């Protein structure tokens, strides 16, 4: 079978490191020119969106669940210090060991040290975006540890030398024929078909021996329960359960914001998470464990609690809500921008609307400043968010911070956007200035107006508009001129 027919022009390897990734508008260009990738993304999120919409409609108390989920998360954050300590005490009492990592480097080193104590040269992993955030895999590989991702999507990416483009369905930009090509090449399966059943079976076989033989696992946490010191992992395939039961040692990496006050809070969270994430009433498997249970599962259990910028987000009242996020990805599925660009354009493991607010904040606003502007502010993300994060509000706050950073820079002096905004503000302060500008603009626009009464091409920043849209010529009479003339006639 030839797969040349489906081959795409080589895409640049996506750079998801906010320190080096190109700004959003630039990173989006190669994707916008890739019809296959855009088709894959649109298809996948249209399917999830439709399923989610159906299940949310069926749930009569959806808005009440959202309110409760939002309030529980907010309360957990407001008392985070106390809940983290309670979690640590309970988890430790149950036989777990809690480590604290202030930043990515410390978390990576802590995990590597633990692996060295285990003499682990191989490790199996449950999908965790937090590990992608701290770029754990390349670090461990460079230190001589072979890392095996076990989530089907993560295997596709790992074997295909690709990067995640979505936080729940990380390989949604890859279609079945591309998966077939990757698996055939990397697993040595020449006769593999592109039937998803066959591809899934190939992954099952590929991983079975790894699950049975590799005694060390790394995973993330959907929730930490302060009251009990328990950890919960939400998944579909059973790879999580494999990693949580077969190995000797389990290492959980979790952001400090993942804490819930009590076990019972899961009655809300588990109702909103799967419905929002995959459009299911409940995901196939959710596991909860507490420290170490003799005779059942890993007998050594470590939790690494990661700050990495979270405490500074916590300190800002308007932005704090960012940390309520439960990583369901409903916002990216609903986002019309994400639908066009997919995830790689965001230059971060956290794409979409939540990524547009989370990434620059994790970077302490020193990088990824283009992301708060990567939104038309349509509000679809806020509408679907199960924990009611007002993403547009945070986007606006971050935009203001970026402008405050940049506006006094020398380079912005002649930046048409900054210049235009300053001039526009001067005009809007006095009606006479505004009216004068309208008259001058009407004269100026004549230079660009074609015979059909439309402007087809503008210079400078206006060219960004006219590259795909015309602009109707300015009327010979503004509304206020018409109004004044009418009043005059009436008198």
């Amino acid at each position: 079978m030839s797969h040349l027919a489906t081959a795409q022009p080589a895409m640049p390897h996506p750079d998801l490191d906010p320190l080096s990734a190109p700004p959003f508008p630039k990173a989006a260009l190669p994707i916008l020119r890739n019809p296959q990738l855009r088709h894959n993304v649109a298809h996948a999120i249209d399917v999830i969106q439709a399923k989610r919409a159906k299940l949310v409609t069926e749930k009569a108390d959806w808005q009440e669940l959202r309110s409760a989920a939002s309030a529980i998360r907010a309360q957990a954050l407001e008392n985070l210090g106390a809940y983290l300590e309670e979690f640590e005490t309970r988890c430790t009492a149950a036989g777990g060991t809690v480590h604290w990592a202030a930043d990515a480097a410390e978390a990576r080193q802590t995990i590597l040290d633990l692996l060295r104590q285990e003499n682990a040269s191989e490790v199996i992993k449950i999908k965790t975006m937090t590990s992608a955030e701290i770029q754990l895999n390349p670090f461990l590989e460079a230190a001589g540890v072979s890392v095996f991702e076990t989530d089907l999507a993560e295997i596709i990416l790992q074997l295909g030398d690709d990067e995640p483009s979505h936080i729940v369905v990380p390989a949604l930009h890859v279609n079945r024929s591309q998966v077939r090509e990757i698996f055939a090449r990397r697993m040595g399966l020449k006769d593999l078909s592109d039937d998803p059943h066959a591809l899934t079976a190939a992954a099952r076989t590929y991983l079975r021996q790894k699950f049975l033989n590799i005694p060390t696992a790394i995973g993330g946490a959907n929730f930490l329960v302060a009251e009990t010191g328990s950890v919960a992992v939400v998944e579909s395939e059973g790879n999580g359960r494999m990693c949580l039961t077969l190995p000797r040692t389990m290492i959980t990496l979790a952001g400090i914001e993942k804490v819930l006050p009590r076990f019972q809070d899961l009655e809300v969270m588990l109702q909103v998470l799967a419905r929002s994430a995959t459009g299911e009433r409940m995901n196939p498997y959710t596991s909860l464990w507490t420290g170490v249970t003799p005779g059942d599962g890993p007998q050594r259990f470590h939790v690494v609690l990661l700050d990495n910028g979270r405490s500074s987000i916590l300190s800002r009242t308007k932005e704090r809500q960012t940390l309520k996020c439960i990583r369901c990805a409903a916002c990216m599925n609903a986002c019309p921008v994400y639908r066009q660009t997919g995830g790689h354009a965001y230059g971060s493991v956290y794409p979409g609307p939540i990524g547009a607010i989370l990434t620059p904040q994790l970077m302490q606003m020193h990088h990824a400043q283009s992301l708060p502007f990567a939104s038309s502010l349509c509000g679809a993300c806020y509408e679907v968010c199960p924990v009611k994060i007002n993403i547009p509000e945070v986007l606006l706050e971050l935009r203001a911070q970026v402008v405050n950073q940049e506006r006094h820079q020398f380079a912005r002096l002649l930046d048409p956007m900054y210049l235009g905004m300053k001039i526009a503000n001067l005009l809007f302060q006095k009606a006479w200035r505004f009216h004068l500008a309208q008259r001058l603009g009407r004269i100026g626009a004549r230079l660009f107006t074609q015979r059909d009464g439309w402007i087809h091409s503008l210079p400078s920043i206006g060219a960004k508009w006219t590259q795909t849209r015309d602009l109707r010529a300015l009327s010979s009479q503004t509304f206020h001129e018409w109004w004044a003339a009418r009043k005059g006639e009436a008198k």
Partner: protein
Amino acid sequence: MRASLFITCYNDTLFPETGRAVVSLLERLGVSLDFHPKQTCCGQMHANTGFRGEAFSQAKRLVRLYQEAETVVIPSSSCVAMIRDQYPGLFEELGNESLRREFAALLPRVYELSEFLIDRLGVEDVGATFPHRVTYHASCHGVRALHLGDRPYRLLRKVRSLTQMPLPNVDRCCGFGGTFSVKNAEVSSAMLAVKLEDIVATGAEYCTALDNSCLMHLGGAMHRQYVGMKTIHLAEILASTEASPAEATV
């Protein structure tokens, strides 16, 4: 009934026919309209681009200007959303107590056009005639910020000879987003292409909305691509009668 018209800066400059239609519509319904000549902009463009101080001074200006108004009518859903959703935060952060009080007093008197017609005047049938196929683009601000719901459809249903053409994915953004359309011009254009496809597929002659900013975006692409469809603000449809049809149709 007395009402003061905030026409908005871009309608004043680029879409005066919408303003004229609002006047003829509301006067036909017996509203005594007033227009404050010193009005300029609500501050939305600056607020949405991160220029918060500038947005604040424009917002303050608007609140002072309409202090005396009995009712303010605004034929632009995004500007109404700016006032309702962003002014409170701006005034909380940058304003003083007296400004906050003035704003609190003004806010309940601010209406988007379809809200004014249905909630305030209690009319659905405004006596309009518009013998064309029309599809309604529910702008993001209309749907998710103002929750206009079925108001626009109820108004359209009562227009004589008008055929409504339902728009699939009606709540999906057209990609305008103010300065987003130039800062992220390519992504904005990709969103626009998808939206336009849905709109053109309705087979309508006109695409209408309660926000000329979306319509400027959609209309600009329609003209560029010769799709043979026009945009028209809902006010112009509602103002249209057999005796004096909408300007866009003649």
